[in-house]
């Protein structure tokens, strides 16, 4: 089993390396290099060539790739083309903002989603189960910005309880923090909650349909004992897999939600970077998001290995 997990870790690292190549190719080698992007279309060829030399773009791509990688590993992410500021500085502050948003969401969603999914699976076809199924189906199908705008309309415009945008992270007090983050966290949570509850429900339902549970029912074991002593123990790893897979969703969810509420996080940085073709910023942000994503998928993979005896024994 350990070799299998190490193997997965190796695959994860390999994927990360391939991602660096893709990000590098995507932002460096495709038409309109950084020098042209900085100077705009009206620049003379001489000016572009001069800037290219100055930025070191005339050297082979492979050399620049290794410089970029080694810079990233030592914390030197280069400077933004748009503002000239050091990217590590730009990111440091925004990274903690995004982490706060995503962390709060995960903290709220993980326990409640599992509870919802568990209860819905314990009483399949009950009124509660039907409500959960229909509500989560709607939430999953609806775009994040509809939820966000509806929440703003209700809580910020009609009731005037909460601010419509969350552009500040200079919190005066804990109450102010809650007030500022309430709507972004709520929007993100609803989508995540729906997905996670749905997957938890089907995971547990799957286990409740297995033959050893049928055996326990036939033996006359009481319902709660079956769920908590027989099913839940076996559901641990698959649920861990569900949690990790869904937290990986946060990587894209956060981009939309930060934009809706003008929240000063990493996502805002990369979206602005794409609009202004600020390649070093895009590279750095994309690597952070992809690393987080790959990490979550890796955790999900390992949880799946731990949960499946067949995977545990033979290498896949």
């Amino acid at each position, binding site marked *: 089993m350990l070799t299998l997990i190490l193997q997965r870790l190796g695959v994860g690292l390999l994927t990360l390396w391939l991602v660096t190549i893709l990000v590098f190719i995507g932002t460096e080698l495709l038409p309109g290099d950084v020098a042209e992007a900085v100077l705009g279309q009206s620049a003379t060829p001489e000016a572009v060539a001069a800037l290219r030399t100055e930025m070191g773009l005339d050297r082979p791509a492979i050399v620049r790739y290794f410089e970029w990688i080694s810079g990233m590993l030592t914390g030197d992410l280069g400077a933004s083309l748009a503002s000239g500021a050091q990217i590590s500085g730009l990111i440091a502050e925004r990274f903690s903002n995004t982490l706060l948003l995503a962390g709060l969401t995960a903290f709220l969603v993980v326990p409640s989603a599992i509870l919802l999914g568990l209860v819905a699976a314990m009483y399949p076809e009950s009124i509660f189960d039907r409500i959960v199924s229909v509500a989560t189906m709607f939430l999953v199908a609806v775009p994040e910005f509809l939820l966000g705008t509806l929440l703003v309309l209700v809580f910020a415009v009609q009731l005037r309880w909460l601010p419509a945008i969350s552009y500040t992270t200079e919190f005066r007090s804990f109450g102010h923090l809650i007030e500022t983050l309430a709507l972004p966290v709520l929007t993100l949570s609803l989508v995540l909650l729906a997905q996670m509850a749905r997957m938890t429900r089907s995971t547990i339902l799957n286990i409740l349909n297995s033959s050893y549970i049928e055996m326990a029912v036939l033996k006359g074991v009481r319902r709660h004992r079956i769920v908590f002593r027989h099913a839940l123990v076996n559901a641990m790893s698959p649920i861990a897999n569900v949690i990790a897979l869904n937290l990986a969703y946060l990587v894209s969810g956060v981009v939309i939600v930060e934009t809706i509420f003008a929240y000063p996080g990493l996502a805002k940085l990369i979206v602005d970077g794409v609009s202004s*073709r600020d390649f070093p910023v895009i590279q750095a942000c994309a690597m952070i998001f992809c690393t987080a994503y790959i990490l979550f998928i890796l955790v999900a993979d390992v949880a799946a290995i731990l949960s499946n005896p067949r995977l545990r024994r033979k290498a896949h």
Partner: protein
Amino acid sequence: MIDAEAPKVARGDALSKARFTLTSAGRFGAAIILFWLIVAIVGPFVAPFTLGEFVSDEGFAPPGGASLLGADYLGRDMFSRIVHSAWLTLGMAGAATLIATSVGSALGIFAAIKGGWTDMIISRIVDTFHSFPTLMLGLVVIAALGPSSALLILMTGLIYATSVYRIARALGMDIVVMDYVQVARARGEHTSWILFHEILPNAATPLVVDFGIRLSFSILFLSSLSFLGLGVQPPYADWGSLVRENMLGLISGSLAAIYPALAIASFTIGLNLIVDDFAASSGRAISGKIA
């Protein structure tokens, strides 16, 4: 890479026999889809105003007179703008999903038939692209190449082709080992003959269900990009960009941003209702899986 997530689909031959009936929820979904398709095709000819026509001097004017849903941030008729942008929204997503399904299933089944090195190389490449968060992949590509409609369609199609590939390959793997395929091989049939006569008919139903799921993902993905300002660019508009344009009006109580978002939501919910029925009658809830 995620084994627990790998599609588990029933054997093809059992699926093709499944009778398909719509429940009342499914019929409701079909009605919504039909409604939007008609709007997309007929709408531009009967809409009260054109895409750029002004109905008011001020932005976010309330509904009244010929203007059913009020005005947008510049004073253009919101109702007409939603109607006019329907075909672009649905057309782009539809084209992207067609690319995803055709490329993904062709490669997936090809890999399943060939096996060995061919399968391994294609699968590794697909896995790498699949391990990119889709939105990040989209942002990097748009940063490099700029947001043209053709690029958006192609990119979305290829991104979702990786998901279709995994499902088609899993389906193909199941079917390839069936006796009737072995018999066809023993008869000396050509690979393409086996593909079109034995494998595709048996893989069709789950791939159609998947088309529905993929279409709703494509709509959400493309409108998210437009919402971020990185998708469809003015003077053209899709529902996502209509939401983006009119977000500011929300604070003053204008519903202009809500209507196009509701249009997207109704279409994707309609799709999901149909897909749920389809999946239920095929015996497996593929829709429950997030691929």
